């Protein structure tokens, strides 16, 4: 009896495998580390199905997905490059199945995931630069928006870069929050404008600065020459003017 059931199961699996092999749900792209999106969800699901991936199906191609893919490639005699190209994707489609609707609905519900071997899904994940949480980015965006919302884009990246330069500098607190809320450091903090809701541009500027862009030439201070009240600030060596702000060492 059990043997009979097993045979049916095997048969059904084969049918499904063939069907999914034909479906070829992957798009044509070569998927590489750092990518996000539907193809990554499918990649993770298929790697999980075959037992190579044990972490969350979250749609972000991170390190654990990368290791799983490399192990998969090694076992199946493919070139081990950690890239999901045509051959690798075809092999995955042959040896696993992928029920897109089911996976997607589980992800939407943020549900625990039993179908693919008990691993969890996360409702949505995003790439995060090393050392920064999404909340850090949000807090910095608040500061940038409060301080420089009328400034050109470069000026907004510059304000974010100054915050980061301060975090790195010995003379300032060594966390983003410490720098932003340091008394009398930023006018937007002193007058409460930091609590305005930032726009996408401010967030983009923060992300650029975190990823390494520094249009200020490593400035630690900036000021508006028309409104600056402190004579001291004029004594700092000036590097560059962006919009209304002069940036200095």
């Amino acid at each position, binding site marked *: 009896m059990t043997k009979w059931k097993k045979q049916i199961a095997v048969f059904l699996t084969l049918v499904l495998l063939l069907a999914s092999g034909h479906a070829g749900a992957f798009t044509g*792209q*070569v*998927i*590489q*580390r*750092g*990518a996000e*999106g539907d193809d990554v969800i499918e990649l993770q699901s298929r790697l999980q199905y075959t037992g190579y991936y044990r972490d*969350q199906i*979250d749609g972000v191609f991170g*390190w*654990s997905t990368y*290791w799983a893919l490399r192990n998969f490639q090694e076992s199946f005699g493919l070139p081990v490059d950690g*890239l999901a190209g045509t051959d690798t994707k075809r092999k995955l489609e042959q040896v696993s199945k992928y029920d897109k609707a089911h996976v997607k609905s589980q992800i939407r519900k*943020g549900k625990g995931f039993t179908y693919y071997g008990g691993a969890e899904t*996360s*409702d*949505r*994940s995003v*790439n*995060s*630069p*090393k*050392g*920064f949480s*999404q*909340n850090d980015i*949000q*807090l910095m965006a608040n500061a940038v928006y409060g301080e420089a919302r009328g400034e*050109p884009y*470069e000026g907004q990246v510059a304000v974010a870069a100054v915050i*980061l330069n301060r975090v*790195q500098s010995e003379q300032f607190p*060594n*966390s*983003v*929050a*410490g720098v*932003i*809320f340091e*008394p009398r450091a930023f006018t937007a903090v*002193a007058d*409460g404008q930091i*609590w305005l809701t930032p726009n996408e*541009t401010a967030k*983009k500027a923060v992300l*650029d600065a*975190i*990823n*390494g*862009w*520094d249009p200020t*030439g*490593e400035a630690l201070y900036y000021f508006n020459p028309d409104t600056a009240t402190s004579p001291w600030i004029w004594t700092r*060596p000036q*590097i*560059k*003017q*962006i919009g209304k702000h002069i940036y*200095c060492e």
Partner: protein
Amino acid sequence: MRTFLTAAMAVLLVGTAVWGYSQYRQKQELLIEAENSYQQAFHELVYQVDVIHDRTGEALAMNSKTNLTPALTDVWRLTSEAHNAISRLPLGFTPFSKTEEFLGNSGDFTHKTAVRDLDKEPLTDKEYTQLESLYKQSADIQNELRSVQLDVLDKNLRWTDVSRAASEGEEPRDNSVIDGFNSVEKKATEFSEAETFGPSQVQKSVSDDALKKLSGTEISKKEAAQRAKDYFQVDAEVTAVESSLKGAAVPFYNVSVTGQNGEEATMDIMKKGGYPLTFVVNKTPGKSRISLNEASEKASAFLKKHGFKEMVPTESAQYDHTGVFTFTRKIDDTLVYPESVVVKAALDTGEVTGLEAQNYWKNKKERSIPEPALSEEQAKKELHPKLTVMETKKAIVTNEEMKDVLCYEFLAENGTASYRIFINADNGNEERIEKLQEAEGVYGS
């Protein structure tokens, strides 16, 4: 007489109003100041727990005393700072003693192990397990704190309101902070008895002076403008060419260009030699139409076209519809990490929307790669026994003493996290250990 009285009353009234208003202003200012200091304490607390988590994660992969002792010392310092941050918050309304106890125990544990000579008395198995549990617990607390933080940021919650409500003995109106802290407290129960890192890509290892050694002839404003137009891949008009001010490390031009659909870009170009320092386009890409892989090839072609030689992609990440790539110089089979640039590209059209090359130019020089004294197998022996090596490369990195050293780069994992570890190829020192960043879940939904 009556007019006099009226006038006197009026003066008094105005006087009172002015006084009242200035009192109100002062009170507002004090409120904002108090609020800012609460906010600072709170966000610092979250950050410190983040770093405690990352540093303990790194400590788990360390095998040498030279690295482990500073890591443990760091955690010890952070636990005390986190403790301090908690004490600055108006948390009278909710018990928070277990979290504080957790911090206290972690502090004791890391202090005890940090002051010990770990060469003579390495971590015992039990201590290693404790370190693992500290790592896991800090992850739980970190998760809970981050979701409170998201609430605070999203709903614009005021700590001064929380504190007022607490002092008046009532529950604050929005309970999410309290709920949040209660669940932090719940997670912080089971610790068995028991320079912070900088952002990876923003490494500013060398001084500005390094730019001065670059040679070349002075370029004109016009040439600088043309160069910026070449970098910008759409038909553009130059709107301004400004010179840097006196305090700049090296004199450069700041060129602004505008495309026909209003896209703006700016670029800094060194006057001497015309070296491109930084370039950024203000663009919000539409829906992704090309893959990260394809975009990285376009970025690579862009670098080649602009004269960056021997560069290979070493890092890639997608943020919404923008791809951000790190390219690193590769000489034969050795990666030269100090000579890295960051490039970003829009995933709708594939056009390059940014280049950051200041560190690249500071570190750029003629190099000959020495032969390593240790073999790969010998270097591998220096790794923590619990690590499984997944990938090995040869690489040059800048160490703590600001010297460029040849290393074996091991990418490894231990079941809970992945690490990048640099072992000096001459003397086997653990030069650097990084815990590799995984994706972050989106909280609060």
